[in-house]
């Protein structure tokens, strides 16, 4: 970017391929997409040559762990926002398992404010379902909903709302403000001390199994509860073929359920656990090849609505140890689009307009976040990602912008590369590089946030 660029001036993006494949120029001005067409020009605009690049609506991640407040050694809202921007995201939903837990209006408003201050993406806080994620009594869901953070997604992620009565009440209660319960489906008794997918490999490796039925039985219960009380349910990180079947059945029955799959569950299998490298320890665990195939089919046929990263940064010492002692989780924001490209586009199961749907429009709709996921339309918010689909790279530590190095893709070859991200009309990533926080802060105040 020219160093003499005046903050707040327009952008002219030349020759990008829209998700439907047509070529267009775009003008971004005052936080909006001002024009879409061919041969456009705009006085004073900074030009970006997008020849060969795909322009996607800014990506929206419904499932991110930003770790702040409380676990700033793992990630902060600033560093997590930067990881998101590098991955082509313009909005992330911050999971509630912080310390203190995001279970009051005060904490969610603080997270919102820190996100606005960082200015890289829209940070939309998620509220806890139960006080302290303890699964005993409902948190102040209404207070969080009417706070400045306008919380609509509630989740105890990391823990399952396993008490059926509490789950029923939560599902019912959030109808008052069009909320949704995002369930971490894991029957706790069936997964005590669980370390990896239960099956032939766990039997051999001597690692306590995490059986598929522990996920599927909760999803089955929850879709029936959602049907019974007429509520909206979202299922986090679906990981098994059986879960896909249950959700497909529920949707056919007209139950108001949506579901997400993570990039890693769409690409990686449990075979990586052999060797006990804790970078591959995640919850729910990596599953079998058959499960990966079923998730891909589910995403392709709409049973699974979205891809969400479950970005879970951890400090080095939480992974540089024996398997049992290691923390669950993988970072995923920076690699998400490339991984979905490899799993879904290269396999011919999804096109780029589908990618725009599962990584932008649908997650924004499920989470009811404003100013996001509205597609590439004149007058719409200038939330865009420029992606080079022809690129290929050996993914390395330098590709990670957050604090966590716990990526399962290090030293793997991944397709594609995010070259620019625009949020509220200004660039957060340009020429494949993150713009420094100081430059982001100099962007017009009313555009930031």
């Amino acid at each position, binding site marked *: 970017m020219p160093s003499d660029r005046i903050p707040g001036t327009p952008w002219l993006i030349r020759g990008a391929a829209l998700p439907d494949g047509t070529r267009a120029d775009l003008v971004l001005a005052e936080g909006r997409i001002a024009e879409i067409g061919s041969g456009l020009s705009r006085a004073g605009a900074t030009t970006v040559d997008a020849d060969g690049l795909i322009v996607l609506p800014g990506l929206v991640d419904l499932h991110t762990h930003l770790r702040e407040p409380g676990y700033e050694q793992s990630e902060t809202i600033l560093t997590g926002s930067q990881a998101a921007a590098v991955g082509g995201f313009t909005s992330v939903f911050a999971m509630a398992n912080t310390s203190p837990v995001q279970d009051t209006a005060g904490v969610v408003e603080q997270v919102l404010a820190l996100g606005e201050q960082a200015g890289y993406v829209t940070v939309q806080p998620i509220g806890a379902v139960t006080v302290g994620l303890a699964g005993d009594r409902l948190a102040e869901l209404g207070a969080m909903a009417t706070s400045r953070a306008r919380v609509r997604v509630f989740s105890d992620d990391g823990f399952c709302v396993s008490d059926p009565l509490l789950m029923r009440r939560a599902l019912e209660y959030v109808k008052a403000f069009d909320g949704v319960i995002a369930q971490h489906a894991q029957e706790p008794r069936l997964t005590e001390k669980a370390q990896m997918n239960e099956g032939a490999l766990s039997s051999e490796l001597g*690692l306590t199994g995490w059986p598929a039925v522990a996920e599927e039985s909760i999803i089955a219960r929850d879709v029936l509860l959602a049907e019974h009380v007429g509520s909206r349910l979202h299922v986090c990180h679906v990981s098994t073929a059986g879960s896909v079947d249950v959700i497909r059945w529920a949707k056919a029955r007209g139950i108001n359920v949506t579901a997400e799959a993570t990039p890693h569950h769409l690409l990686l299998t449990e075979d990586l656990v052999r060797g006990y490298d804790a970078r591959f320890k995640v919850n729910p665990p990596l599953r079998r090849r058959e499960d990966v195939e079923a998730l891909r089919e589910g995403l392709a046929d709409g049973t699974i609505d979205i891809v969400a990263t479950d970005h879970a940064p951890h400090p080095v010492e939480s992974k540089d*140890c*024996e398997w049992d002692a290691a923390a669950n989780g993988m970072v995923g924001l920076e690699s998400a689009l490339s991984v979905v490209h490899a799993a879904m586009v290269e396999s011919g199961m999804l096109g780029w307009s589908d990618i725009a749907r599962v990584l932008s429009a649908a997650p924004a709709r499920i989470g009811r976040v404003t100013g996001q996921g509205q597609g590439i339309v004149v007058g719409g918010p200038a939330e865009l990602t420029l992606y080079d689909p022809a690129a290929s790279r050996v993914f390395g530590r330098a590709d990670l912008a957050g604090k966590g190095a716990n990526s399962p893709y290090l030293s793997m070859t991944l397709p594609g590369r995010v070259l620019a991200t625009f949020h509220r009309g200004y660039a957060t990533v340009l020429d494949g590089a993150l713009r420094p926080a100081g430059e982001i802060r100099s962007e017009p105040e009313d555009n930031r946030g």
Partner: protein
Amino acid sequence: MKHLLSTKGLGRAEAIGLLDIAEDMADVANREVKKLPTLRGKTVVNLFFEDSTRTRISFEAAAKRLSADVINFSAKGSSVSKGESLKDTAQTLAAMGADGVVIRHPASGAPEVLAASGWIDAGIINAGDGTHEHPTQALLDAFTIRRRLHGTASRGTGLDGVRVTIVGDVLHSRVARSNLWLLTTLGAEVTFVAPPTLLPMDMSGWPAAVGFDLDAAIAAKPDVIMMLRIQAERMNAAFFPNSREYSRRWGLDDVRFARLAPASIVMHPGPMNRGLEISSEAADSAASTVLEQVANGVSVRMAALYLLMSGDREDS
């Protein structure tokens, strides 16, 4: 051999070679001076993150008979939250100049993590990791069977056609896993007998027959019957109703013991729960190899230490 982490990765020739060296080591035990100078000046660390006096003193005796210096490092509670990490412990031992590390750890895979980590450049012997493997136990079991069957003509032989029935808590047993891979590599046929709750969820890839009926297994006249220890904590976790019922259905009691073929071998890795998985009559009989297993354990561990630590270790 660079490390001894599992029996799954052990080839037949390699395994027989180790057992043959153990025969030589056993001969040493019968001499007046029970000591070889082989590992003089080398340091073996017994790194035990889990209590096991038997296994530790067996390795200690083995190392001392080879003239190695032995350091016993008891480090219960391994996770980062409980104190020093495996990484820091390993780097500490490396700084002290350990040439060989014998590690017992409650987490499956910990020896493999240690061997692959680069934290320490010593030969690693897995002395039992979680519910994964316990390779020297399997080697001493194979050694014991071979000696019972072939006596002084054991050298060079495998266990072809020997029928071994392993009874008990296979799910949580690293002994069962290591024996499965080693015994089948040596040509034996392995049958597991256990309550369905104490079998791994998917054994489809295991070269073993599986049954729930101990009486049927005994009627098939196995050459070897190996009884696994039932841990007290299993009884409180709904794996079976109570110890009496377990003993009635899966214990080697006097009646079942009497039905075994006269030449059958009765094994137990110890420590035994007498009256639960094995009766005193069976444990103390001539068919029992329980004490031979203990003696042979030292010979086999001497062989393993010798292979890992004498001369230049080969890269595997």
